[in-house]
């Protein structure tokens, strides 16, 4: 294998994971923009999506139907959580809200442990077939599914935000919550919508990634963390930033693991993250610098 094809290999596998990080990061950004909350339970949405999918497929539900039902189930769960926990703490400080989401994620993880146990589950790839050869590098069909899903979801999200009433109302809330309220947009409804939408993104990420990793009750922890990193890399309030942040993180990680050391994979990703933050304190796509007092 030449260096060029090796590099291509790392970049392809990096983009696969990067697509997942981008979906999770997008969830972080949407919730943060609408509500100001850093939702540390985002990774658990991913885990729930994957778990529901594995269970439904195990019950012989056809894959496309199982996919839709799993996403809807996660949306319902998250909607209830938003309604029950986040709404009652609306007036709390940001740190308190972050701790609430940490508590929620702990509880969800615990419930998953109760229901599904510690055993890892496997999901069959969506399509059968051997690895595909591209310029000396190989890619498994599921990676194409992941990259494809990410692209489709991003395009759909873009249209939703730009051209629908809901999307416009959501964006209005992101720009100025007070003005949005004066225009008759209910921030409470938008908060619920932001959570449910992020839940759908997370669940989808979990479902498409399930065939290439094992599904375990604690898989959400690291995925959520990486999604947060990607979101911050992208500036935390920018949706394209989140996507690029996610892809960049995936590629950096994969290159670091391949070229330097796989044990230091996470370390390398975070060293680069720190360097980026030191050079651009507001994230790559963030508006850094002046802030009104």
């Amino acid at each position: 294998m030449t260096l060029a094809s090796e590099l291509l290999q790392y970049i392809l596998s990096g983009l696969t994971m990067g697509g997942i990080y981008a979906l999770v990061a997008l969830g972080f950004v949407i919730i943060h923009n609408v509500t100001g909350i850093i939702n540390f339970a985002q990774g658990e949405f991913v885990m729930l999506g994957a778990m529901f999918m594995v269970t439904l497929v195990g019950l012989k539900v056809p894959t496309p139907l199982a996919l839709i039902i799993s996403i809807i189930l996660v949306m319902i769960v998250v909607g209830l959580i938003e309604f029950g926990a986040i709404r009652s703490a609306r007036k709390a400080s940001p740190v308190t809200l972050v701790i609430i989401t940490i508590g929620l994620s702990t509880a969800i993880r615990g419930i998953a442990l109760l229901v599904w146990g510690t055993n890892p589950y496997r999901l069959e790839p969506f399509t059968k077939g051997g690895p595909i050869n591209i310029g000396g590098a190989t890619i498994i069909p599921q990676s194409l599914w992941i990259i494809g899903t990410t692209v489709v979801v991003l395009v759909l999200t873009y249209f939703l935000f730009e051209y629908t009433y809901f999307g416009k109302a959501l964006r209005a809330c992101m720009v100025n919550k007070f003005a949005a309220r004066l225009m008759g947009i209910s921030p409470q409804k938008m908060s619920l919508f932001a959570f449910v939408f992020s839940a759908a993104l997370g669940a989808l990420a979990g479902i498409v990634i399930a065939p290439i990793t094992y599904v375990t009750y604690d898989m959400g922890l690291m995925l959520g963390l990486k999604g947060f990193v990607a979101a911050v890399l992208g500036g935390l309030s920018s949706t394209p930033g989140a996507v690029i942040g996610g892809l960049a993180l995936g590629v950096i990680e994969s290159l670091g693991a391949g070229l330097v050391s796989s044990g230091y994979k996470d370390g390398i990703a975070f060293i680069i993250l720190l360097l980026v933050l030191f050079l651009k304190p507001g994230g790559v796509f963030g508006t850094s610098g002046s802030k009104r007092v």
Partner: protein
Amino acid sequence: MKDLTRRKRLRHSLIVLFTLFIFSLPFLITNNYYLSVLVIIGIHTTVVVGLCLLMGYAGQISLGHAAFYGLGAYASGILTSTYGISPWLAILAGAVGTGLITYTMGIPIFRLKEHYLALATLGLGLIIHVIFVEEVELTGGPSGLSKGIPYLSIGKLVLNTDFRYYFLVWAIALAAIILANNVVHSRIGRALRSIHGSEFAAKSLGVDTDKFKLQVFALSAIYASVAGSLYAHYITFISPSPFGLMTSIQFVVMAVVGGLSSIWGPILGVTAVTLLTEALKSIIPQLIPQAGGEYEIVIFGLILVITMIFLPEGLTSGLLKLYEGWRYRKERADEIP
């Protein structure tokens, strides 16, 4: 003025009373298990006091404190077991080393704000943790240090029982609290609170905010490092797992549950969280015999959520509010016969 001195006296007498209470506890509790829980509470309190100083007074969050805790533990563990250096010197070396590392790393980190700052401390913590796991020759890798870590000793007295260790741990925890208390009520403390209030206003009044933030960050890391050393000499074995992100989050949870606005917050928060975890461990198997650790996690998470919803400013101010409400009603009742 009179009111101020009275409050100061009240504060001092509270600390004295609490010290007496703490040092009389081991004579009342003879059960070794309870004593060991109290030792762990003391060790965690030292960390959380530092964290509270950083979060509550300087308004800066840190998600990397478990790593600083780990730096102390590994400094003590490696220096004493591999190089045979005196444990007390090793604790000092760990504290100085951690202080230097965090101070230098803090210079770029504290240019960041809010969530970026939280992420940078998280990143720093994760990098240190990866080093614990990967530097197998130095740290023993994931399975931990292979050689045993010696117990601490004062002169000929070896601190190898919970009863003896308890006094050392709590003496250090109380010293940490008193030092933090003095910092809070000094000129530096007022400067810190002004940073919490508004960094811009503080800067415009001539407060060197960057310097103060760095110093508090380094101080809180040193607290964590000393606590880590104490942990290493108590358990006498260390591996990377207690120094990961979950522990960092746990420290933040303890600080927030206790409340950030008072020096009593850390003790209350650490005690509540630790007792809750221990209680769940012993109560749940009695209620549901076949239950495993899962129920603990669920209930712990739910209790955390409920506490934060109903007492968003933590237990300390929640209790204070209850007390004030009670006093207010009592005064009203006295006025209207």
